[in-house]
């Protein structure tokens, strides 16, 4: 026997279902609010495989070491780290961020790369989960009016502004002033942002050199012989590279092979020259190269604590900016959680927005965010590779070693 289902009954059933659904949906956030609050689940999302793997793993070390160090500093909080790998790919970064949020991450931290960070920022904003960018410089990420995205890393214009200023200081201090330069950059989101910023800002800085050629190349290139031959043919006295790690190695290797010895090789603010893999691969050829980047303050007490713990945990790894900024991202998350006493996305975001940390690792002023979610107090330093280690040589108030210029030729290095 079949029972007839009238239009009236259908209407009543549908209305009841909708009402029940609305009730569940309406109370769900409160249930979550009640259930959460004891453990902060941090989604750490980095390129742990693919061509950026070494850099992503460096960031991961900063994340992994943070709970122990923060506890020692009195920032007690129960933290669960959920790891995800972007595979150095923007689309995978987006889907992994979605998975982390669906699996219950309360905060996201990452992602070293600008393209990947921009994709994660969209997910974080859409899902209402705070996202703290540890390393990524493309300015547009914090120009979208996002409410859940915070960046404790300089934008490309900030990097370039500091980088160009420091260049003039380097020339003043050393007495070596190149007249011409070649600008070489990886053709990715970060490289293009830096190129755009240099093009826009260089005229304002009254630089003593002229950029005679700009050469962009594939960041995954396996050979830079043509690029270096082209740059060498300009006869420029300085090379300004914006690299990643693998291309930085290729670039110097090819310069040695082609016997090109410019007076100065100075990055206006990019990774590559100060990474452990760079020193291991190039040995003596890694020395005397300069990079103007945000860096840890070697004289800060908290840095020393972090350095001690890092060298105990990772005996063969180098402590550098990726570790420092990733640690600070964790610090911001835990500090906000302790103040908000909640894992609710909006409350956590409000707490992060109110961050004010004066005693921190990276050089610069108070760690805080402006209305756009950007920390504008980060300052770059000039690093020089000395004895196959990065040393701060300028500004003098945080310096660890003396600036050595002009660079000795490739063949004059023992």
């Amino acid at each position, binding site marked *: 026997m079949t029972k007839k289902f009238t239009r009236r009954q259908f209407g009543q059933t549908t209305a009841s279902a909708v009402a029940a659904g609305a009730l569940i949906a309406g109370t769900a956030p409160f249930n979550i609010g009640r259930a959460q609050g004891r453990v902060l689940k941090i989604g750490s999302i980095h390129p742990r*495989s*693919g061509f950026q793997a*070494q850099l992503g*793993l460096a960031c991961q070390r900063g994340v992994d070491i943070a709970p122990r160090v923060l506890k020692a500093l009195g920032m007690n909080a129960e933290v669960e780290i959920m790891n995800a790998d972007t595979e150095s790919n923007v689309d995978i970064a987006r889907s992994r961020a979605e998975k982390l949020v669906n699996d219950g991450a309360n905060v996201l931290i990452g992602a070293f790369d600008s393209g990947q960070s921009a994709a994660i920022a969209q997910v974080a904003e859409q899902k209402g989960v705070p996202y703290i960018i540890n390393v990524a410089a493309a300015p547009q990420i914090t120009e979208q009016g996002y409410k859940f995205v915070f960046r404790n890393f300089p934008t490309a214009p900030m990097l370039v502004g500091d980088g160009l200023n420091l260049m003039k200081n380097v020339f003043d201090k050393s007495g070596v002033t190149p007249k011409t330069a070649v600008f070489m950059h990886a053709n990715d989101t970060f490289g293009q942002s830096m190129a755009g910023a240099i093009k826009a800002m260089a005229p304002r800085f009254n630089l003593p050199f002229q950029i005679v050629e700009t050469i*962009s190349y594939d960041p995954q290139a*396996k050979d830079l012989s043509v690029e270096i031959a*082209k740059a060498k043919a300009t006869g420029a006295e300085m090379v300004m590279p914006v690299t990643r790690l*693998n291309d930085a190695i290729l670039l110097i290797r090819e310069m040695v*092979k082609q016997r090109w010895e410019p007076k100065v090789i100075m990055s206006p603010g990019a990774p590559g020259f100060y990474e452990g*893999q760079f020193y291991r691969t190039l040995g003596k050829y890694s020395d005397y190269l300069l990079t103007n980047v945000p860096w840890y303050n070697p004289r800060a007490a908290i840095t020393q604590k972090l350095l001690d713990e890092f060298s105990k945990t990772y005996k063969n790894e180098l402590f550098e900016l990726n570790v420092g900024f990733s640690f600070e991202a964790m610090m911001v998350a835990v500090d906000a959680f302790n103040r908000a006493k909640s894992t609710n996305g909006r409350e956590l975001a409000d707490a992060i927005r109110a961050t004010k940390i004066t005693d921190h690792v990276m050089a610069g002023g108070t760690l805080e965010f402006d209305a756009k979610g950007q920390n504008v107090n980060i300052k770059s330093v000039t690093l020089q590779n000395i004895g196959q280690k990065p040393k701060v040589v300028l500004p003098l108030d945080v310096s660890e070693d003396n600036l050595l210029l002009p660079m000795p030729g490739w063949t004059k290095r023992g």
Partner: protein
Amino acid sequence: MPIELVLNVTLQGLLTGLVYGLMALGLSVIFGVVRVVNFAHGEMMTIAMYGAIVAFGAWQIDPLVAMVPIAALLFALGYVMQAWLINPFINRPEHSQFMLLAAVAIVMVNALLMIFGPDARTTLVDYALDSVEIGPLLADKVRLITAGLALAITAGLFAFFKLSRTGKAIRACADNYMGALTVGLNVKQLYAFTFGLGSACVGAAGAMMVLLIDVTPNLGPAFTLQAFVIVIVGGLGSMPGALLGGVLIGLSEALSGLFFAPSAKSMFAIALLILVLLFRPQGLLGKKA
């Protein structure tokens, strides 16, 4: 633009192209005889590169010396793969063969990741950064050596197929499968031998390549793609075609980088591939099916 610059870049492109050619040679040899496209080609090359890294790291054996045992090991790997794994798929549809070898490639990449981790590795031989002056030209010593070896290996392989009895038997299998069976050739064994030879070429190329670029487990797919572009341009199954394809791709990358934008180098290589597919689908030295 100074003529020295153009000549230098052309020489670099030529030398790089010859190494590319050797890299793709194995793929072409295997397809030419067994009619199976080795989708794990780049991954096998990455294994060879790690072999050279281990030999150098553990026993300080120069990659150019380690090339011989590595090629022998890759020969054994290829022989076993063909005899035990690929042979049952010889008469199955092409998509089954593709799935099998793509799966093998994934296993290889992940095994390398588990063993060596994602960090880039390299060998620091004394002559790695040396250059040789030839008149106004400055040639990278490593590229010069590897290009010479690539030519020698290709010539040796060519002579083997033309002059030796086994080589002739393999060519007979490639020309007429049924005929080869009828005259009593052990086709299964010859196929395995050919796959081994192709793999040995990849092994030699990998041992040389480690002197030019750092190796990570994820390099494999990029090498596979590049080898495909080269053999399709040169003609799938043609040994001289693989070398020609390599040289053309090497030159097109170098000259497009010089005259246009270096970041567009790969675009020109792919454009060359499209042109060949449009106007000579069998490849420059390939035979019409």
